[in-house]
């Protein structure tokens, strides 16, 4: 049986800002249909890596392939495959939730009737009067829902979520991960960055990054067994300690 082409293939990726090395030659794959958690503390290099995958940041060296295509040569084609939800959600504060959705639908090239059809999904989850409020006035959980919704509007195959659960309450986090499972069932590939280590249990595989280096990667259960740890927090601390000693 042939190995599937990775949805995301990162090889020897480096990123420097002046003398500071933010990403130090990391390599990893994300297979189609997987949920991969990109775990690490703030400043570990998660956002930098995700921004390089989207093409928002220039790669210092190394390669990134999306569905087999080099993202430096085929960015236009790759953009059609990728969905990206940024750390700050990056919605327009003075537009209502509905207007944000209409705007992002518009720039994605969705026809109005397609957009209306999709809106039913959102209307089932969020009350219409909330959708008519300015995005700056709605709770973070709703902002998060809207941000994910607009990210999914172009029906991307691969979804990059940068710290999607930061700043939202535990219930909203659980609901969010349920939505992510729903996406996996629809065949989507997801790379989700988080500094909440307890979210590792939701992932098929995790990649732990620290100071721009990958310090551990694999399925959560397998990693716990391999490193003889009882939970992800302990595994994380152990991996960082060992990495520091090396």
């Amino acid at each position: 049986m042939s190995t599937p082409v990775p949805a995301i293939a990162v090889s020897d990726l480096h990123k420097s800002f002046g003398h500071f090395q933010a990403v130090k030659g990391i390599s990893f794959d994300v297979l189609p249909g997987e949920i991969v958690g990109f775990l690490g503390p703030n400043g570990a290099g998660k956002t930098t890596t995700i921004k390089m995958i989207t093409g928002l940041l220039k790669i210092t060296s190394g390669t990134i392939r999306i569905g087999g295509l080099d993202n430096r040569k085929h960015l236009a084609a790759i953009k059609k495959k990728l969905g990206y939800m940024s750390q700050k959600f990056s919605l327009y504060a003075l537009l209502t939730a509905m207007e944000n959705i209409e705007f992002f639908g518009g720039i994605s090239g969705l026809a109005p009737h397609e957009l209306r059809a999709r809106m039913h999904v959102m209307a089932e989850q969020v009350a219409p009067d909330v959708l008519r409020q300015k995005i700056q006035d709605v709770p973070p959980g709703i902002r998060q829902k809207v941000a994910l919704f607009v990210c999914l509007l172009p029906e991307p195959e691969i979804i990059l979520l940068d710290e999607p659960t930061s700043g939202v309450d535990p219930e909203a986090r659980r609901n969010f991960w349920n939505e992510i499972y729903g996406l996996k069932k629809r065949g989507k590939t997801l790379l989700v960055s988080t500094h909440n280590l307890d979210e590792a249990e939701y992932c098929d595989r995790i990649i732990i990054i620290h100071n721009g280096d990958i310090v551990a990667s694999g399925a959560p259960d397998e990693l716990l067994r391999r490193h003889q740890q009882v939970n992800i927090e302990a595994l994380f601390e152990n991996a960082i300690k060992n990495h520091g000693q090396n």
Partner: protein
Amino acid sequence: MGRIKAIIVKEFFHILRDPRSLTLVFITPLVMIFILGYSISYDLNRIDAVVIDHAQSRWSKALSETFAANRIFVIQSRAADTGNPLSLAAAEQLLRLGKIKEIIVIPADFSRRLNAHGQSEVGLVIDGSDTNVANLVFQYTERILLEFTAAMKGSGQLLKIDTKIFFNPEARSQFFFIPGLVAVILLMISAMLTSLSIAKERETGSISLLFISPLKSGEIVLGKTLPYIMVALLDGVIILLFARFWFGIPLRGSLIVLMLFALLYIISGLALGILISTIAPSQRVAMLATLLSTMLPSFLLSGFIFPLDSLSPILQAISYIIPATYFLRIIRGVILKGAELKHFLFEGVMMIVLSMVLLAAATSKFNQQRKAVQ
């Protein structure tokens, strides 16, 4: 003391570690002193004038020659196309178009009155749309007439001056300043609208979503420009109405003609704003850069405060790439002189060229920036 020292040290760190703001702090005074040093001058290097000599006598010819011999006056007596002597009506049309600043009229009885009464009159018609320039033109003319009189003193003859100020007969400085201010404010507001809008998108991170969307850079630039054209045009109408009804500035020409040129002018301002936003990392820097790059040249190098003829050749050359230079001529022409569309074909073409160049540069720089991060 220790607490104050902590604040001082922190502030120095802020100053030294923000290279763009630091550059602005040190470069701006140098640019200002350079531009101001060369532009603040009330000397005129050139006065275009028409002499209409109805007398055609020895004395009138001598007076014409005195003006022609002066290095500042550039005298025209005949029509450029036919070669015939210019009529007063034709000269007034040149005055309306801004081609000349003064008409010197020597009456038919000039020499007869000189010989008979020992004195005669010279008529001056001066473009008063720029009160400063009008004053200077009068002073320069008066000086030449005094010299001419001095040369004639042997015969004891004197000249009297009969002056008419066209377009602003009361020499109200508001007539001169307010149209200029409209031009400066409109450019500043237009540029600020787009520069702040894009800088804000950068600060909030929403520009990332535009960058990774299928949108082309040209589409983003156009999409950012078109709504603000309407906002700035409305702004222009409000400012003009305020000028008309609050300051009593007349509108002698067509509002439609003025708004047509304002549209071109606004496009150049909006494109300039986008260009600025590509180098400004924050809204604060974008605002400062917009203020400097619109107000300074528009005030000093467009002919608003100081006549272009008084600028050094280098600054005169720079004035040709400043949109306010052209719009200022148009707005003063339409408002004060009732000039029409056909009178500003050159200015219109130049404004179209400048708008297109600025839009192309803004799109290209925006695209470069988008690629630079990729």
